[in-house]
């Protein structure tokens, strides 16, 4: 009996020992499993953090159809030309948007990331919401000079700011309403930001005073002048109107009233004493007469008539039902100003003023066909059929600076009409002001607009039958085919 007890004890001890060995092995394997999982997760996260930090921005490509997320070679060259210690901040005064579809930010967020990537540290892009961090406004604009507001971009360089509204990064077709909004027709975000940077760094070469009233906005014209390095200052005609010494040219566009005699005299003094230039644009809408403005233009032997142009050559008409909307011919000596046909509507006829001084050289810029008629807006009397000028140029032959461009159309200065043919008009206006202000285009950073991504289908191929057929196939036929196949397979195999 004693030996049985000893045998049982030995067996029990052996089992206990085996169990202890097994338990320790299990513990070891368990620890190894847990540690290996933790190590793997840690390694994966560390490697990904490093990858993101070192290569995240480099291994990034723009696959969009319009190249909206990448800067062009023009901007790249410009950024490369900047000194290596240049420090430009682009600050979005809002939280970085995450949902970009159908918002203006779809065309700015990705693009600005590319600015930061390609600038080699010269440009940083941040998104700081002034509602949560109000000090950003005083940090960028301590004196409050720029009146910074939320939901805008600020380009900041050495204490100077340029504000960019997200919507200003687009050309809009203002005559077309698309779901209650103006339809964007071109993306000029890169042009806007590159020019903002260029202006902050290089400053302005010329200054132009733009005289207008609120009836005809001219943001497009101001943007073009900005891209030419010309500072455009809006001026309202007041009783104490005067022209500052730093003014290189005056732009008068879309005035809905005539200037006063005193204001006319100020302008005449500007022309003769300061050698200034003029750009004047009117149209025949509202039938306004400009006797005092004509006195100024008389100094260049030019006159705004009270006549509207009617075109009767069908090859010039834009709309077969309207003789007031037509193409215009560009005079030979200005043919380089545009590659495309210029268009206009409700054009006012421009003529000489009957002051053919020997020192004044006057020429037509834009003319109608020889089948057009000039109709007086007051008397409705037609003049004889022939070719009439809608745009003219005049200069003093002994002066480099005193010249005027006069247009009887607001197509090149008023936003509403400008957008009808934005690309052609932009090109045309840039050439005019380059000529007028003696700007060397090689010194400029001109960035073309990009198209808006267009995923439209060809609607002439699609009708209600097509849509019904597509709906039936994709939402009924194809899923049903799979469901029926599944049912057949189930029935065949359920008894297996």
């Amino acid at each position, binding site marked *: 009996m004693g030996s049985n007890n000893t045998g049982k004890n030995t067996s029990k001890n052996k089992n206990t020992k085996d169990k202890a060995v097994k338990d320790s092995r299990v513990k070891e394997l368990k620890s190894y499993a847990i540690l290996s*999982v933790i190590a793997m997760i840690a390694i994966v996260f560390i*490697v990904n953090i490093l990858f993101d930090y070192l290569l995240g921005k480099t291994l990034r*490509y723009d696959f969009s159809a319009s190249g909206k997320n990448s800067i062009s070679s023009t901007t790249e060259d410009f950024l490369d030309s900047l000194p290596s210690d240049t420090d430009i901040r682009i600050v979005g005064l809002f939280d970085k948007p995450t949902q970009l579809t159908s918002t203006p930010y779809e065309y700015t967020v990705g693009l600005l990331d590319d600015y930061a990537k390609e600038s080699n540290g010269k440009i940083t892009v941040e998104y700081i919401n002034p509602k949560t961090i109000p000090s950003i406004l005083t940090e960028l604009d301590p004196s409050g000079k720029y009146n910074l507001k939320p939901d805008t971009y600020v380009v900041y360089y050495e204490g100077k700011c340029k504000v960019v509204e997200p919507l200003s990064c687009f050309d809009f077709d203002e005559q077309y309403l698309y779901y209650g909004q103006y339809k964007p027709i071109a993306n000029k975000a890169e042009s806007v930001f590159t020019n903002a940077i260029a202006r902050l760094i290089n400053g302005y070469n010329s200054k132009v005073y733009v005289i207008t009233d609120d009836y005809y906005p001219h943001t497009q014209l101001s943007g073009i002048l900005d891209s030419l390095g010309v500072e455009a200052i809006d001026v309202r005609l007041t009783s104490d109107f005067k022209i500052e010494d730093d003014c290189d040219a005056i732009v008068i566009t879309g005035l809905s009233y005539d200037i006063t005699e005193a204001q006319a005299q100020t302008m005449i003094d500007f022309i003769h004493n300061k050698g200034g230039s003029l750009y004047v644009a009117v149209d025949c809408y509202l039938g306004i007469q400009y006797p005092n403005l004509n006195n100024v233009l008389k100094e260049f032997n030019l006159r705004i008539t009270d006549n509207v142009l009617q075109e009767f050559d069908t090859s010039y008409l834009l709309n077969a039902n309207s003789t007031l909307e037509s193409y215009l011919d560009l005079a030979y000596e200005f043919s380089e100003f545009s590659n495309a046909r210029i268009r206009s509507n409700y054009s006012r006829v421009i003529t000489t003023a009957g002051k053919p001084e020997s020192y004044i050289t006057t020429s037509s810029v834009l003319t109608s066909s020889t089948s057009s008629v000039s109709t007086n807006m007051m008397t409705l009397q037609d003049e004889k059929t022939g070719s009439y000028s809608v745009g003219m140029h005049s200069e003093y032959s002994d002066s480099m600076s005193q010249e005027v461009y006069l247009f009887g159309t607001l197509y090149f200065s008023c936003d509403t009409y400008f957008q009808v043919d934005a690309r052609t008009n932009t090109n045309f206006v840039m050439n005019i002001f380059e000529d007028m202000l003696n700007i060397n285009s090689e010194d400029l950073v001109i960035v073309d607009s990009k198209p808006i991504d267009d995923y*439209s289908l060809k609607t002439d191929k699609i009708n209600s039958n097509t*849509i019904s057929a597509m709906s039936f196939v*994709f939402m009924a036929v*194809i899923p049903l085919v799979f*469901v029926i196949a599944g049912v057949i397979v189930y029935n065949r195999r359920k008894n297996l």
Partner: protein
Amino acid sequence: MLAVYKRELNSYFRNPTGYIALALFAFLSGFIFINKFNQGSVDMSAEIISLRNYFLVIVPVVTMGLFSEDKRRGTDILYYTTPSSLFSIVIGKFLAAMTLLGIMFINVIIQMIVTVKYGGTVNIGTFGSCLVYFFLASLFIAVGVFASALTDSQIISAIVSFVIIVLITVISNIASTISNSLASVLSVFGFKGESLYKFCDKVEDGINWVNPLTKSENFRYGIFSVAPLFYCISLTLVFLYLTYRVLDKKRWSQK
């Protein structure tokens, strides 16, 4: 691995599961496509990226039976007796599920052909979106495979993978909630002002960094970035390794 892959792929078509998943995906992707087609404008890149929202439903259906069915029947013992390594079995089943998702994608290819036929745009950005779709699919499939290995019930497996995928989907919301809560708590302890907001923003950005959906969002806008793809592959490997570890536990666990 090849044998496991073939067996698993065939099993999808020997029972209704595969057909249900194919029908479901066809219907859902067709729904998005027809809505856009009706509007006269089809952005295939955005549509393909949008399909990731349906992984919530499709992935649990596709992956719920991968390991749990074998566990229920008791045939999972074959994993430990077969000459193939356990990891190759995991990979084989994972690839079978990925192949089924690839077969589903044929529907999208048909939509691309229709889009081109009707004058729409299919460009390199669209193919970039296809690539990120498959990388995200691999991540979610790996999550489903892991969930399937945890249990012998297909229903529980589907629920677990659904919950994990939902958590991944709502990481942004969780990050925002944590950030706001942290701001409230810290302000009670006297922390105020811009430094508090900056800190909480950093916390939110840190949590959002782990969200694969946020990382891949830019593909919708034509921005192709390698970092999100690398991240998806890394997380896929993590979940496959976790699956291997769960299965391997049976070897040494005494339960």
